[in-house]
Every structure is written in structure tokens, then in C-alpha cells.
């Protein structure tokens, strides 16, 4: 017990979260789009079609490359898959007027277009497969419903489609109690700190459980490294561009417009039935942010065949487990 207490204290005193090195896989930037960039993780030997990954806008992209041995991009690269990853960057106060049309029809569409061009030049690939995680997946789904030829196939991970099935989050994000306009008018962007606190409050006891798990496994060096890396990633939230956040919460959480319809983006109705890319929907069994039912709702709306599959883990934990890379590789090889 005393030895464990000593290990625990020594570990915390060494400031492990600040020292944690995440997102270390070598990559090069092939496209700049304001603050967003497309990073290419090139494999040593190309064996498969390139994939494009649309990450969430709430945290950083590094959850897909957390640590060696716990990295989705590393696993895909090892299997010979070139990975083009969209890193949305960090919006500043000057980006508060960037709306969803600029993000989806602008940044996301352009990033996919430049990826397609680069993949053709570099790898001779005519088309790419697209992967979306969380809200990055929601945006990707909307984009591919509007521009079906941009990707050959679509894989979504923990991507909300039926927002009213998103558990506690949908209960909180309702127009009666959530002062959306006041918050955005006051802050400009939706602040990263507020986002972090909101997610922490989704499971208040989860904060304590985090410290307890460290206590229980403080003698395991690998676990300590993973714990520190997860903490580093978790603490690194980004602001959400104000106008885009206003539209996102209003349309998705208040109106559940992807299910109910009637959402006009850039003068055009968002209609998921226009999607042509066959889709794989992956959900995490213990996901309290996007429960499987919220993700699998795509089956009722998408215009092409949808295969649904549940993986072990939570909303974030699923990214550092072994099941996700295996499921993606199976899909890529199919």
C-alpha cells in the first residue's frame, strides 16, 4: 500500500500530463485551408486505396495517433494504407463568424478534393474512401449527401445522426434550458473550457473513477503512459467557431434536422437519402456521448446500403483499443 502510494505520488509529481507526447507519427501537410490542414501519413509500402479521415472539431486530431501501438493511423500505415487526415485547427476570436456552410461546403469539401488530387498524383488512385469520427463524421455524411462522387465508400465512427437519441447530451441541449444565443453572443466562439466541463459533467463520477483507475494500476508503466496521454488529449479542447456552433446545436440538437428533414445549407436541403457511398457505421458499446442507437439511425436515412457494427469501449476509448483498426482494415480490404 505504501509502495503504491509512493509510486502514485512520484508519478503525479513528475508532471506526466505536460510531458506526454501524443501525435508523434511522421506526417506532411498537403493542404492548408485557413487554420485547417490535411496531413498525409504515408506508409512505407502502399498496398491499399488511400483513406481520408474527418476528425471532430472539439478536441485535437491526436486521438487517432495517441501513442505508438495505440494509434489508428499507425495501424493503417503498417497495413499499407495512406491516411489523409483533416485537422480542423484551433479557431480564434476572428473565426466566430465561420458558419457550417463554410466548414462543410468550404473546408471539408476542399480538403477532400485536394486529397483526391494528391492521391491521384501520388498513388494513382482515382477515388478515396472516407472515414469520419464523431461530429467530423456528421459533417462528412452531410457533405457526401451533397457531393456523392467525392468518396467511394464511407465509414463512420461514433457519429451522431439521431441527435435526440444522444442520451443526456440531448436532454441538456434543448432550447428550454440551454441559452445558446446568449452564450455565443457573449463569448464569440463556444469556449473550449466550457466544452470540457460539459463533457466532464456528463458523468460526474467518471472524474473520480479516472483517479481510482490510476491508483489501482499505478504500478503498471504502460497504463501510466496511456493515462497521461489520455489526460493530455482530454485537456486539449479547442474552441468551436461561434456561428457554426449556433447552427450545429440549433439544427442537430434542437431540431434533430438530419432525421426530421428541412435543413437548408447553402440554399440546398440536406437530404441524406441522396448519399450514394456504401456506409459502415461503427458505434462504441459504452458510448455515453453518442449511444449506438444515435449512430445506427443512418440506416433509416442513407441512400446507400449501411452496415452497422458495435465495438467495445466508450466514445474515446474505442480509438485507442485494438478493435477499431482491425474493423477499419477489414472494411478497407473488402
Amino acid at each position, binding site marked *: 500500500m505504501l509502495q503504491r502510494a509512493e509510486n502514485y505520488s512520484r508519478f503525479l509529481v513528475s508532471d506526466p500530463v505536460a510531458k506526454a507526447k501524443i501525435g508523434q507519427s511522421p506526417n506532411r501537410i498537403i493542404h492548408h*485551408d*485557413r487554420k485547417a490542414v490535411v496531413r498525409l501519413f504515408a506508409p512505407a509500402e502502399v498496398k491499399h486505396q488511400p483513406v481520408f479521415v474527418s476528425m471532430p472539431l472539439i478536441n485535437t486530431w491526436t486521438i487517432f495517433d495517441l501513442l505508438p501501438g495505440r494509434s489508428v493511423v499507425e495501424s493503417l500505415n503498417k497495413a499499407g494504407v495512406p491516411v489523409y487526415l483533416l485537422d480542423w485547427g484551433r479557431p*480564434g*476570436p*476572428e*473565426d466566430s*463568424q*465561420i458558419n457550417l456552410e*463554410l466548414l462543410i461546403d*468550404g473546408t471539408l469539401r*476542399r480538403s477532400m*478534393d485536394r486529397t483526391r*488530387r494528391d492521391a491521384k498524383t501520388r498513388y494513382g488512385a482515382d477515388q478515396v474512401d472516407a472515414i469520419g469520427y464523431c461530429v467530423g463524421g456528421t459533417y462528412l455524411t452531410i457533405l457526401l449527401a451533397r457531393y456523392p462522387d467525392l468518396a467511394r465508400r464511407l465509414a463512420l465512427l461514433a457519429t451522431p445522426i439521431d441527435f435526440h437519441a444522444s442520451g*443526456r447530451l440531448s*436532454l*441538456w441541449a434543448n432550447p428550454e*434550458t*440551454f*441559452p445558446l444565443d*446568449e*452564450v*455565443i*453572443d*457573449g*463569448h*464569440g466562439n463556444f469556449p473550449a473550457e*466550457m466544452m470540457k466541463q460539459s463533457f466532464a*459533467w456528463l458523468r*460526474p*463520477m467518471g472524474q*473520480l*473513477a479516472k483517479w*481510482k483507475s490510476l491508483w489501482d494500476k499505478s504500478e503498471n508503466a504502460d497504463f501510466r503512459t496511456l493515462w497521461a496521454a489520455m489526460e493530455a488529449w482530454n485537456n486539449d479542447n479547442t474552441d468551436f467557431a461561434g456561428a457554426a456552433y449556433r447552427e450545429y446545436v440549433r439544427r442537430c440538437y434542437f431540431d434533430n434536422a438530419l432525421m426530421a428533414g428541412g435543413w437548408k445549407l447553402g440554399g440546398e436541403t440536406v437530404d441524406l437519402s441522396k448519399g450514394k457511398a456504401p456506409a459502415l457505421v461503427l458505434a462504441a458499446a459504452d458510448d455515453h456521448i453518442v449511444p449506438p442507437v444515435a449512430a445506427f439511425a443512418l440506416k433509416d436515412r442513407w441512400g446507400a446500403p449501411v452496415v452497422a457494427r458495435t465495438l467495445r469501449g466508450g466514445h474515446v476509448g474505442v480509438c485507442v483499443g485494438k478493435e477499431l483498426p482491425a474493423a477499419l482494415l477489414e472494411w478497407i480490404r473488402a
Partner: protein
Amino acid sequence: MAESQENFPDFTKMSNDFYKQWEQSMTQWWDQVIDSPAFLDAMGKNAAGYAKARGSWQKSMDDMAEKMHVPGKGDLVRLARICTMLEERLLRQEDHILLLQDRLETLEKEALQGRIEAAEARLELRDRLQKMEDLLVKLADAPADARRRKSAE
């Protein structure tokens, strides 16, 4: 000795069990609190109040900077916003250029295909002309041969 150890309570297990029970009861309590309309209403008002205070503070800072004739955060944000808009326009121009490049490539391919087809047609025509010329030469030679044969007779 062994018997006394078996009877001795396992404090680690006991503390783990106690923690689990306590965690479960606390989770239930928190669930009731954070899902209650009263809590959500209060949190909403709190967030709105904080945002309003933050906005007012920012405005007062900008007003003060203006009175001191120095650029405030609002001025810098406006400047950065212009840069962002310019960047967006440049990106749209890049889109147009790439689109034009695609069309030019298509046109180039079509034009090249047209030239290849025209060249093939010309070659075909030349071959036909050559054949016709050979036939004409043969026909022109035929009466002369006939005259020669007649005079010899």
C-alpha cells in the same frame, strides 16, 4: 496460523466493495441532480449570466482602449477577420483555377483525341489515293501494251 489467516477479514476486498457501493449510490444521486429541470435551468441561467458578463467586460476593455487611442482586442479581431475572409477568397480562386485546369485537361484530351483521329483519317485517305494512283497507272499502261501487241502482229 493458517486458520486464523482465513478468518481474518480481507480489507482490500472490503474497501473495494465499499467503494463500489458508494460509487453506485453517488452516481444515482448525481443522475437525479443533473437531469432535474431545476438544475438544468439554473445551469443555463448561470452560463447565460457568465457569457453576458464576459461580453460586457470585453466591451468595456475595448471602450477603454478606444479612449486611450490604442487598438483593442475588437480591432485586432476585425483585422484578423479581414485576413480570414481574404484567405477564403484566395481558396475559392484556387478552386476555380483547379476547376479550369480540370476542364483544360479534358479539352486537351478531347483535342488530342481529335487530332489523332484526323491524322488516322488522313493516313487512310493517303492509302486510298495511293491505291487509286496505282490503278490509274495500270489502266494508262494497258492501251499502250495493246497497241504494241497489235503492231507486232
